[in-house]
């Protein structure tokens, strides 16, 4: 980038043991050929080994984790007109996930078979929102995001309302389509009509 003109005068450069100033003999065509073969083979081998390595590392980038219907239990656990904490097991859990495998969510029973299920994660930066039934608000402890009972943005920095899960009632059980940490890049509910804040 800059037209540097370094002079070999730094103290470290002195005393370099290269008194054997004999020039390297001109490469024979055989050595040249071996060098070229060597480079070529290594490029090929490098390409070969990079396939499994990149495939391994990037697998989670490309892999699809389809959402799955998850049973939250009988609808009778959620009295009409209330919003309650529920939790479900991550469908993609590993045996060594420990307590991380249980994912919480907020279930709002509006009426009869009409439910809304919200992700615990604030739409701002993912902190756990808490429900206050007295003021009918969700509040976030991190940056003060607040949401109304129906998940709409009420105050604070979140760019949208709470993330929701697609939900349905089957045989008296509440089911949600889950299996993702909702984020702005993938809200995790294709049926949701996102409303701007």
């Amino acid at each position, binding site marked *: 980038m800059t037209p540097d003109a370094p002079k070999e005068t730094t103290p470290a450069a002195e005393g370099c043991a290269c008194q054997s100033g004999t020039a390297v003999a001109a490469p024979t065509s055989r050595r040249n050929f071996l060098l070229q073969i060597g480079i070529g083979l290594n490029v090929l081998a490098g390409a070969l080994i990079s396939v499994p390595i990149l495939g391994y590392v990037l697998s989670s980038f490309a892999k699809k984790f389809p959402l799955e219907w998850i049973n939250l239990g009988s609808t009778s656990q959620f009295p009409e007109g*209330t*919003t*309650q904490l529920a939790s479900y097991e991550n469908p993609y859990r590993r045996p060594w996930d420990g307590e991380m495998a249980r994912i919480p969510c907020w279930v709002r029973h509006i009426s009869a078979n009409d439910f809304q299920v919200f992700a615990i994660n604030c739409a701002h930066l993912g902190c756990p929102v808490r*429900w206050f*039934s*007295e003021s009918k608000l969700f509040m976030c402890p991190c940056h003060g995001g607040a949401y109304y009972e129906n998940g709409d943005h009420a105050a604070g920095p979140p760019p949208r309302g709470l993330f929701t899960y697609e939900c349905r009632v089957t045989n008296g059980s509440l089911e949600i389509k889950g299996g993702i940490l909702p984020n702005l890049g993938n809200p995790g509910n294709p049926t949701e009509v996102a409303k701007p804040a």
Partner: protein
Amino acid sequence: MIRSRLLPLALCAIIASALVGCDWMPGKPNPANRWKPAASITDPATLFAQNCLACHSIGATTSAAIALNSPTFLAVIPPATLKDTITNGIPGSRMPAFVESKGGSLTAAQIDLLVDFILKNKKPIEGPLPPYAAPLGNAATGQVAFATFCASCHGGTGAGAKAGSIVDPDYLGLVTDQYLRTIVIAGRPELGCPDFRSRVPGRAMTDQDISDVVAWLASNRRNDLGQPLAAPNP
């Protein structure tokens, strides 16, 4: 030669003191401060401070809702009612349910601890006590009793004099009849409202006076906002 014998000894001493010494350094985490789930808190004073203190005092602070060290209140409220109130709240009033299963922050065991903690201040009170709950009495005689016991502060019509209005429709729209009864019985001594025995010196309110005054107060409840009343009855 002496030096070479002392050296290992000194080293041992240093290492030993490091090992022993570190454990009483102030930075050593105290196992007592180990994280515990909120449900495992068993100190009732802590539970009270974390859950009740904002609305109910217990002597050291003041509070907008009734003080839970009020001697008359503690004397009349049945422990079961106290427990039920903390557990399930009072629907339609501002008292929330505190039990976990209803979205509250306390376990049933913690509520038992709190009930004991509150009732610890209960002291025997001389003379007959009115029942905590009773049906409404007669509003007409209640007005007379009000004039006797309450008008000196709240005015003849209850609209306020030295103390504020007690018949404000907004106020009556917010409070239950049981709430009115509790205040008539226990008063708010710390805020200047005496209890049922001390309103007129030497003359305690009778059971009938209390029920009648509550009936008269309740009869003032109007619905001038065209809204369903918050909680006309307990």
